[in-house]
């Protein structure tokens, strides 16, 4: 994969010095995705599912055709793809609709300290409301979820397993292909946060057999404000809407109303139409690049970077065995917020903080971490720019007395 060529697809790289290493927070957006978004607003920016006139027909066609593109992309059926505001919104729908209806007093919900707040907190609320128990999978010494440790907490009381596909802090991939069948054996439902998974590797919801799976557009070269909730048809069918209002309802009487079928009963009000259509374009772009190539490219960058970072004294890497392009680290004795200002001075963008996963930061026994994350447009020149800056940062902070 020629990342230098790919950079040309992104107008933001007109700034030749930009070194963007924060794709796990939000990826950059290629021009062709922006153009599709633009085209919607400029040429047919009207509502879907309502107008009988031609423009609305075009908008509806494109909106629904994007749903089909995404369904094919993850091997789901058309009706199993719900457009949401993002992964957080999608995971909240699962907890509020499925969770509130099916979790009862004394039931157990399995979570873990690696989860993003968007996956953890909705279930914390369900557990509180329903007097259910949140049970944490013990992490290994590396901070991983293993099938073995998952089995330690799986019981006949387990009703829900809320779990990530790829950790946003540690970058580890969860062994879902083993965990999901085990969960199903005890009759539990598995809700997967795949926000860090879908941008980087092929996910087939049927072969994975996930019950719910959520991801965000803006982490996979698409717009903000759009995400996807996949749910198995049988589960979605009996679930209640979370929000009521326009577009989601079939018939309305004075005291009763009947909601549409999935996915529409979960898409209340005017959806982010242009964003949904542009997400379809992002999917096509990823498919053209090819997941195999993306994985291979990110692996190579990660391997090289970790190997070089390990040569620098005064740097601690928290996930040296990671299998994805996410590297969590700190400069010893330097608060990440101090460090990140140094990198910013070299036009290198990275994350500093707890990455919306306070539990794992606490698990690491640090106040916060630095994180770089690679994606399709990152080059070995980016890696070198980062490594040079890292060496400079270590020397600088030492010189001023850290």
């Amino acid at each position, binding site marked *: 994969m020629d990342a230098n060529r790919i950079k040309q697809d992104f107008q933001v790289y007109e700034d030749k010095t930009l070194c963007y290493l924060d794709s796990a927070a939000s990826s950059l957006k290629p021009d062709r995705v922006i153009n599709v978004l633009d085209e919607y607003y400029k040429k047919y920016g009207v509502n879907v599912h309502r107008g009988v006139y031609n423009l609305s027909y075009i908008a509806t066609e494109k909106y629904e055709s994007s749903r089909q593109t995404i369904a094919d992309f993850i091997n789901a059926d058309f009706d199993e793809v719900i457009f949401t505001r993002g992964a957080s919104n999608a995971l909240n729908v699962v907890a509020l609709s499925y969770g509130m209806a099916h979790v009862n007093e004394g039931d157990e919900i399995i979570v873990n300290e690696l989860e993003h707040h968007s996956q953890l907190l909705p279930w914390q609320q369900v557990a509180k409301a329903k007097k259910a128990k949140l049970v944490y999978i013990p992490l290994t010494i590396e901070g991983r979820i293993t099938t073995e440790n998952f089995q330690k907490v799986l019981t006949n009381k387990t009703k829900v397993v809320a779990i990530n596909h790829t950790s946003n802090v540690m970058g580890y991939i969860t062994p879902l292909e083993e965990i999901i069948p085990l969960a199903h054996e005890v009759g539990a439902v598995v809700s997967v946060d795949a926000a860090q998974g879908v941008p980087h590797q092929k996910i087939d919801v049927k072969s994975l057999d996930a019950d719910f799976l959520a991801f965000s557009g803006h982490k996979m070269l698409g717009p903000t404000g759009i995400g996807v909730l996949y749910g198995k048809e049988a589960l979605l069918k009996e679930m209640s809407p979370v929000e009521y209002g326009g577009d989601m309802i079939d018939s309305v009487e004075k005291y009763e109303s009947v909601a549409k079928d999935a996915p529409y009963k979960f898409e209340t009000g005017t959806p982010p139409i242009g964003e949904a259509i542009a997400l379809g374009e992002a999917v096509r772009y990823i498919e053209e690049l090819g997941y195999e190539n993306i994985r291979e490219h990110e692996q190579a960058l990660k391997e090289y970077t970790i190997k070089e970072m390990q040569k620098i004294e005064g740097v601690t890497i928290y996930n040296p065995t990671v299998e994805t392009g996410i590297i969590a680290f700190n400069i010893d004795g330097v*608060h*990440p*917020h*101090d460090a*990140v*200002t*140094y990198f*910013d*001075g*070299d036009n290198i963008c990275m994350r*500093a*903080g*707890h990455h919306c996963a306070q539990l794992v*930061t606490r698990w690491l026994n640090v*106040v*916060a971490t630095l994180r770089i994350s690679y994606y399709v447009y990152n080059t070995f020149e980016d890696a070198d720019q980062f490594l040079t800056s890292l060496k*400079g940062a270590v020397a*600088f902070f030492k010189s*001023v*007395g*850290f």
Partner: protein
Amino acid sequence: MNNMENLYRQVIMDHYKNPRHKGLVNDEHYHTSHIKNPTCGDDITIQSRVEDGIVKDIRHEGTGCSICCSSASVMSEVLVGKTVEEAEKILETYLNMLTNKEYDEEVELEDAIAYQGVSKFPARIKCASIAWKAFEDTLKESE
């Protein structure tokens, strides 16, 4: 080229490594304010004791970056012994200086002037101001 030297002045590093007025007290004469910056994890608690319109003492405790922690220490040194009115004037001047607003250069900021460089690092303004804002809250409580 990185211009980090503008930010990490000697005074700042000195207070970061050897903080003054550090540690909270269990005394009802003190008013307490706790501020967290959830995006970066800065977490600071400020206590102040005001008597007869004079800031008699300031205490601080918390975790955060060097700018955040040192500014709590510098603030304590600058403001203790000032009248509430003087302290409020310094506070206002300091916050205006950080945010690139017009400020009264006649007001003596003492060591707090070391944070002038922060205004060139917009992402760090919050770090340099949360201790001061927490102090402001304790003053409101004393009123």
